[in-house]
C-alpha cells in the first residue's frame, strides 16, 4: 500500500485498527502529515456537501408497467402474434367461407334475398349506410352485364354485413362487404358455389355465387 493511499483509507475509516493506531502515532510527531490528513478531510467534505447530487425524474420512480416490459420482447412477440394470426386466419377461412355460402343459400332459398330492391346505386348506398356503422361502396356495373338488384343486411361471422345483390344472366351474385384489412385475396368452392375474396380501400369483399369461377373472378376484377 502506498503511504498516501493509507491516509485516504484512514480518512474513510477503512484502515484496520493496528494500522490506524500506528498512523495516529506518526501524525502526533509529524505536523506535515497531520496537515495533509486535514486537507484531505476538507476535500472530502467539499465533495460531499458541494458536488451535485442528481435526483431521478419522477417517471423513473415507478415500477415498470407490464406493457413496458413486453416492449423489450416486442419483435419476438409481434412475430408470434403474426404467426398466430396467420394460423387463426388459415383455420378460420374455411369456416368463414362455409358461413358465407350458407348465408347466400339461405337468402336465395327463402325470400329474403333483397331488403331494398333497386337497380339505382344512389338508392342502395344510403339505405345501407343508414343501417350500418360504415358505408360500403356501391358500383353500377349494369353496362358490363351485371345489373344491380338491390341489397340486404346479413349476419356473418358475428357481425352485420352489407350484401349487394347483382345478377349475371340467371345467376345471383351476393357481394358481402365489411370493414377490414386482413384478407389478401383467395378463392373457395363448395357445393357448386364459388367464393372470391379481396380487400380494397379498407373494405373486405366476399363474392358468393353459383356463377362459374372464371366469371365470378372477372366480376371481382370489375369491383376491385
Amino acid at each position: 500500500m502506498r503511504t498516501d493511499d493509507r491516509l485516504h483509507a484512514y480518512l474513510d475509516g477503512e484502515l484496520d485498527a493496528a494500522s490506524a493506531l500506528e498512523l495516529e502515532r506518526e501524525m502526533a510527531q509529524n505536523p506535515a502529515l497531520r496537515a495533509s490528513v486535514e486537507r484531505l478531510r476538507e476535500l472530502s467534505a467539499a465533495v460531499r456537501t458541494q458536488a451535485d447530487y442528481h435526483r431521478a425524474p419522477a417517471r423513473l420512480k415507478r415500477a415498470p408497467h407490464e406493457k413496458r416490459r413486453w416492449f423489450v420482447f416486442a419483435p419476438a412477440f409481434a412475430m408470434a402474434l403474426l404467426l398466430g394470426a396467420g394460423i387463426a386466419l388459415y383455420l378460420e377461412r374455411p369456416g368463414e367461407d362455409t358461413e358465407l355460402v350458407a348465408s347466400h343459400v339461405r337468402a336465395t332459398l327463402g325470400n329474403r334475398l333483397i331488403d331494398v330492391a333497386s337497380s339505382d346505386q344512389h338508392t342502395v348506398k344510403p339505405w345501407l349506410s343508414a343501417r350500418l356503422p360504415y358505408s360500403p361502396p356501391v358500383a353500377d356495373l349494369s353496362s358490363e352485364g351485371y345489373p344491380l338488384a338491390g341489397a340486404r343486411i346479413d349476419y356473418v361471422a358475428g357481425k352485420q354485413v352489407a350484401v349487394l345483390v347483382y345478377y349475371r344472366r340467371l345467376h345471383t351474385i351476393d357481394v358481402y362487404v365489411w370493414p377490414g384489412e386482413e384478407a389478401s385475396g383467395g378463392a373457395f368452392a363448395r357445393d357448386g358455389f364459388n367464393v372470391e375474396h379481396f380487400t380494397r380501400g379498407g373494405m373486405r369483399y366476399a363474392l358468393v355465387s353459383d356463377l362459374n369461377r372464371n366469371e365470378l373472378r372477372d366480376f371481382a376484377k370489375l369491383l376491385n
Partner: protein
Amino acid sequence: MSIDRARYEALVLPHVDAAYNLARWLTRNDHDAQDVLQEAMLRAYRHFDGLRGEARPWLLAIVRNACWSWLRANRPAELPAADDEQESDTPGPEALAAREFDRRALNEAIAALPLPFREALVLRELEDLPYKEIARIAGIPIGTVMSRIARARRLLAQALQPAAVPRLRVHK
C-alpha cells in the same frame, strides 16, 4: 414469472435517486443517464427475484454495469486504457492544498476525472459506501477501490489548485 410488485416498490424504488446520481455522473448528461437508467430499471425489475441482501448495492451494480455497457457502445474513448491504473505523476499529500472550493469548479473537476476514479469517488463520497460494497458494485478488489479513491482525490486536488491551470506538468 411473477414479480412481487409491492415488494419491488418498497425495496428498490427508494434507491432510484442513488441509481440516477450514479448514472448521471458516469454518463455526464441527463438525457443519456435517463435512457441508461430506464433500461437498467427494467432489468432490475425483471431480475428482482434474484435479489439477495440489500437492494441499494444490488441496484447500483446493475446501473453501473448498464452505464459501462452503454459507454462501451457509445463512447468507447471514455473507457480506461489497460495501463490506466499506473500513475505517471505522483504528487504527494503536499499537492493537496485546495481550501477555497468553488462549487462549479468542483463539479467540473469531478466530471473530468477518468471513469474508474469518478465512479469510485461518487460511490464513496456521494453514496457513502464502504470500500467493500464499492468493490462489489464495480467488480474490483478492495485494494483497487482504495487506490482508485486515493487517486481520484489526488487528481481532484490537483485540478482544484489555483495554480493548476498554468502549471507545467513535469513527467518523470
